[in-house]
Every structure is written in structure tokens, then in C-alpha cells.
């Protein structure tokens, strides 16, 4: 079933040409109404699209892309969506998306989202299909460069490596806005469904990864104080899959005592997780200030090899971000973001769980402090350019696989990232 669904979602063979053709024939700015039209005819299909190309360079440690220390252009995104308002209450839409970010994406085209949306009243609407996950302030728009100031959202709360499986669910959602009579309004989102996980993006040892369930809620209180909203989100999910080790690695793990001598694989695993975030955003006139605090609870259970199981670990993530619209074409932004992989070991005094005795402590791999400065230039209404610099302290957000499988504790503790990105959109 999962295979059939993944084939249907990906459709590599025919989605690509459709994207190209649709982009070629799309009329820019379709939301612009023609003066000669009285707007009384049937509403047209709205087409919107974006194309991004970025560049990433790190002072040391490979980050997001292989060879980022030498500079990498493997940072591209293309999306096109079609929406139609069928009636005052009913709307349908879909978005095709393809991207490349280091080892992720590799230009496989897929349905980013598709839905049928019926809004009974302002306080109750239902949406079914593949819909984006409302988690925190920006998860839904985390792949939309034009909708934010920074190139990379604070990676503690919105890691791009999770984009492919924590951006959307296949299922249903109820939503609405409830007025609170003088106390602002409350926007709610309730959702449930399954997660599609593209194993082509996973490491070569993983297969048949799927998310059998995810459910959650988001509440946002639009405060009577102009521009202020306060909210909370929580979601519960599980990822299941198989780890298939090559024979040489099996032998290595057996020698280390991590696999039984009669193990032949595959290793079946489950990762149940609960994610929660508290959000605060002030956005009025030209100023944006946002802050979020999040904790993620996750464990790893293996039904085939008990020694591979990892008890529940709680990670801690928070950031403070601000941006100011200096002119219509120039917006600088800054944020400070912190990630602790384990709240019980913020300094990394312990060795990773389950590693043999004598393994060095996690050290710098237990935390990551990220101070980022962005300059956004809106060259015109359809084209923008961003430049961004990060000062990083710690390596918790890095991937060992991108760094020659070195432990995170052995990577450079203080390092920098420079990014440039240009996006055209309509």
C-alpha cells in the first residue's frame, strides 16, 4: 500500500513535464484583475509559482549539502500551484514541488499538497487531502522563501532536513476562527492522518519508512493588542521502518556487541514522537518580532533487536527573531536560535545512549547556538535576493553522514555559514 501511494505521489515520469508546461503557459500575476473584466464570470483557476536558487558555504563542517565547505549550489526549489474557488464555500487546489538540497530532494517532483476545502462558517471549515501541517508559526510556510525574511528559518524549531516528512499529512483537518467578543479571536486547527516519507531521501540503510499516524492541534489567539498573536501547537506521530545494514556493517556491529551474533536483518524500528511549541509573534506596520519555545519527545523502539532501542529523549529548541522593513525594497532581519539535543545533558557530558563503554562524551554535539543576520532585497514585485550569515557554536544540528561519518563531538565547534538565495515568484 505504501509503495503504491508513494508511486502515485511521486509520478516522476509525468509530473515534471506538466510543471514545465504549466510554468511556460502561466500568466504572470493571475490574481490581478483585468480592468476590462467586471469579475462577474466564473472565477478562473489561479496559478502561482516560485523558483529559487541558493548558494551555501561553510567555514568548516559540511552543513545541509555535501562539500558545503567548498561552496555548494545544491540549493534549488521549484513549485507551482493551481487553485480554484468552486463556490463561495468550496475550494480545490494542488501544488507540485521539486527541490534539491544536498542529499535531499534530487529534483524528484511530488505533490506538495492537494485538497478539497469546504468552509461551512467562519468558525468551521473542513479540508481533506494532503494538507500542510500547522505547527508553530511557520511550519506551513517553511518552504516559501518569499513569505519570510531569513533564508533558513531558525533550524532549532524548523529543521529543513525534516521538511520532507513533517511538512504535510495525508488526511483531514478541521479549522476555524472563533470571535472572543472584545478579547480578539481564536484560530484553531485540528488534524489527523498519515505521513508520507520518501525513502529515496533517507540513508541507504533505511527502507519502507512510513508514518502510520499523526494527529495534533494548533491554537492561535489573535490578541486585541494590535499585531500580537500568541499560540500553542502539539502533535503526536510515529515513524516505522526497516534498517538494512550491509554485511560489513553487521559484522562491525556484532563485534561491538550492538547486534546479536545470529542477526541477519532487517532491523524493524518504530519512532514514536510528541512535538510541542509555544509561539508569540508581534507584527505591526514595519516591525516583526517572533519567539518560540519547543520541546520534542522521541524514542526508538526495535522489536527485533532490543539493544537498539533508545529510551525517550527530550530535546529543547527556542529562538528569538526580528525583522524591520526599512524601505519597500530592503528588510534586514536577525535571530538567535538554540538547540539542545537532550535537556538532561545540555552540555554533552554523557556519551550517546547505547554506545560501547569508552565512547567519548557527546560534548559540542549536544548543543547548537545559531546567530543569524539576513539582508533581504525585494528587487521588484516578483523577484528577491537574500544574503545571510550565521555564527554557529556547537554541532547538534549537523549530520555525521555529511561529514565522513565522524562523530558530532569531533567536528569544529565554532563555525560560520554564508548563504545567498534568489527567488522569483508570482
Amino acid at each position, binding site marked *: 500500500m505504501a509503495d503504491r501511494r508513494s508511486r502515485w505521489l511521486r509520478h516522476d515520469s509525468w509530473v515534471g513535464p506538466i510543471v514545465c508546461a504549466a510554468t511556460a503557459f502561466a500568466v504572470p500575476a493571475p490574481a490581478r*484583475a483585468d480592468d476590462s473584466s467586471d469579475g462577474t464570470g466564473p472565477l478562473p483557476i489561479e496559478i502561482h509559482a516560485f523558483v529559487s536558487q541558493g548558494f551555501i558555504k561553510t567555514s568548516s563542517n559540511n552543513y545541509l549539502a555535501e562539500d558545503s565547505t567548498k561552496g555548494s549550489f545544491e540549493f534549488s526549489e521549484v513549485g507551482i500551484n493551481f487553485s480554484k474557488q468552486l463556490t463561495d*464555500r468550496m475550494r480545490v487546489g494542488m501544488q507540485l514541488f521539486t527541490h534539491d538540497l544536498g542529499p535531499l530532494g534530487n529534483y524528484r517532483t511530488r505533490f506538495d499538497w492537494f485538497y478539497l476545502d469546504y468552509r461551512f462558517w*467562519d468558525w468551521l471549515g473542513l479540508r481533506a487531502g494532503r494538507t500542510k501541517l500547522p505547527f508553530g508559526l511557520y511550519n506551513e*510556510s517553511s518552504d516559501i522563501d518569499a513569505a519570510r525574511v531569513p533564508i533558513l528559518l531558525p533550524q532549532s524549531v524548523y529543521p529543513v532536513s525534516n521538511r520532507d516528512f513533517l511538512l504535510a499529512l495525508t488526511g483531514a483537518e478541521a479549522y476555524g476562527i472563533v470571535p472572543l467578543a472584545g478579547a480578539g*479571536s481564536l*484560530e484553531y486547527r485540528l488534524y489527523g492522518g498519515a505521513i508520507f516519507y520518501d525513502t529515496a531521501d533517507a540513508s541507504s540503510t533505511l527502507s519502507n519508512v512510513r508514518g502510520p499516524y499523526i494527529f495534533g492541534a494548533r491554537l492561535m489567539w*489573535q490578541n486585541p493588542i494590535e499585531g500580537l498573536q500568541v499560540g500553542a501547537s502539539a502533535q503526536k506521530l510515529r515513524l516505522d521502518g526497516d534498517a538494512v545494514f550491509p554485511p560489513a556493517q553487521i559484522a562491525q556491529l556484532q563485534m561491538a556487541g550492538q547486534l546479536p551474533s545470529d542477526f541477519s536483518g532487517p532491523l524493524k524500528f518504530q519512532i514514536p514522537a510528541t512535538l510541542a511549541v509555544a509561539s508569540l509573534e508581534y507584527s505591526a506596520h514595519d516591525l516583526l518580532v517572533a519567539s518560540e519555545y519547543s520541546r520534542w519527545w522521541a524514542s526508538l523502539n526495535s522489536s527485533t533487536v532490543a539493544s537498539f532501542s533508545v529510551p525517550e529523549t527530550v530535546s529543547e529548541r527556542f529562538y528569538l527573531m526580528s525583522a524591520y522593513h526599512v524601505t519597500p525594497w530592503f528588510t534586514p532581519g536577525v535571530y538567535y536560535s538554540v538547540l539542545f539535543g537532550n535537556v538532561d545533558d545540555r552540555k554533552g557530558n554523557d556519551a550517546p545512549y547505547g554506545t560501547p563503554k569508552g565512547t567519548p562524551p557527546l560534548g559540542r554535539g549536544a548543543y547548537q547556538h545559531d546567530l543569524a543576520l539576513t539582508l533581504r532585497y*525585494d528587487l521588484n514585485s516578483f523577484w528577491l535576493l537574500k544574503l545571510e550569515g550565521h555564527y554557529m557554536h556547537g554541532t547538534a544540528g549537523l549530520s555525521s553522514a555529511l561529514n565522513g561519518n565522524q562523530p558530532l563531538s569531533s567536528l569544529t565547534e565554532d563555525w560560520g555559514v554564508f548563504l545567498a538565495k534568489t527567488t522569483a515568484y508570482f
Partner: protein
Amino acid sequence: MIRNPFHGQLHGPRPTRRSLLWSLFGLCALGGRSAGAEAAPEFRVLIHPENPTTSLSKDFVTDLFLKRVTRWRDGEAVHPVDQRADSGVRKSFSDDVLRRSVSAVKRYWQQRIFSGRDLPPPEFDSDEAVVSYVLKHRGAIGYVSGRAKLDRAKSILVQ
């Protein structure tokens, strides 16, 4: 000592001059107020003439233009309509009523468009086009520059 035969008279005109100056100042001030009262506002918010609404709060108009509220109180579907992003009237409306810069509003809609949440109001290129649209849609709400001809469209108070 020569008495100034005009002493009394000379003293007389002084307050008169001051009065005259104050009067002129007052007239200028009144004239200024008068001119201010006659000057067209930067924008007017319009609805269909059959819509019974006469005034709306800024918060409610914001909810309508951001599509948080999609129905008028009588159940009619709301059809907000914008002007071009680079127009002066859009900037005035956005700053004063939505209390967000046009760019911030555009970012709001980028988030909604590309996450599949909603679509922005249509944009028109002129006041005349907005008036025409408002007259043809009972649930429409738009805004035009202060000196635009409203035809039969109903201008409402936004406070």
C-alpha cells in the same frame, strides 16, 4: 516736549494692528481648517449600495481583507478587492486600516497561497475598476482614492 498729536491715535491702532494680525492669523487658521475639512481623504472604503452597513471597525475591515471573516452579518459572502501593490491608495489603506505595510500583507498572502490556505483578493488597476466591481457584487468591499467618483457605491465610515 512736543505732544504727539496722534498719541492717542497712535496708541489706538496698536491694538488694532495686533487684533488685525490675530484676526489674520485666525483667518489663516480657520482657512487652514476649512481647507482641511474640504480636502479629500486619502481613501474611501466602499461597499455595495444594498449592503445595510454604515460603519465598520478597523479590526473588522482587517479581518475581511485578510479573509479571516468571509461572511457579512446577513450571511452574504464577502468579496474584498484590492488595488495594485504599488499604488498610493493601497499604501494609505494598508498603513491606516490594516496597520501593516503592503509588503507585510504580501508576505501574509505568500504564506497563504503557497501553503494552500487561501488566495488574496483580486487586484484592480484603477479606482473606476474597483467602483465597477463593488457595484456588481452585493458582498463586495473595496477602497478608492479620496477624489474618486463613487457612482452609486456606498462609502462607509471606518474607525
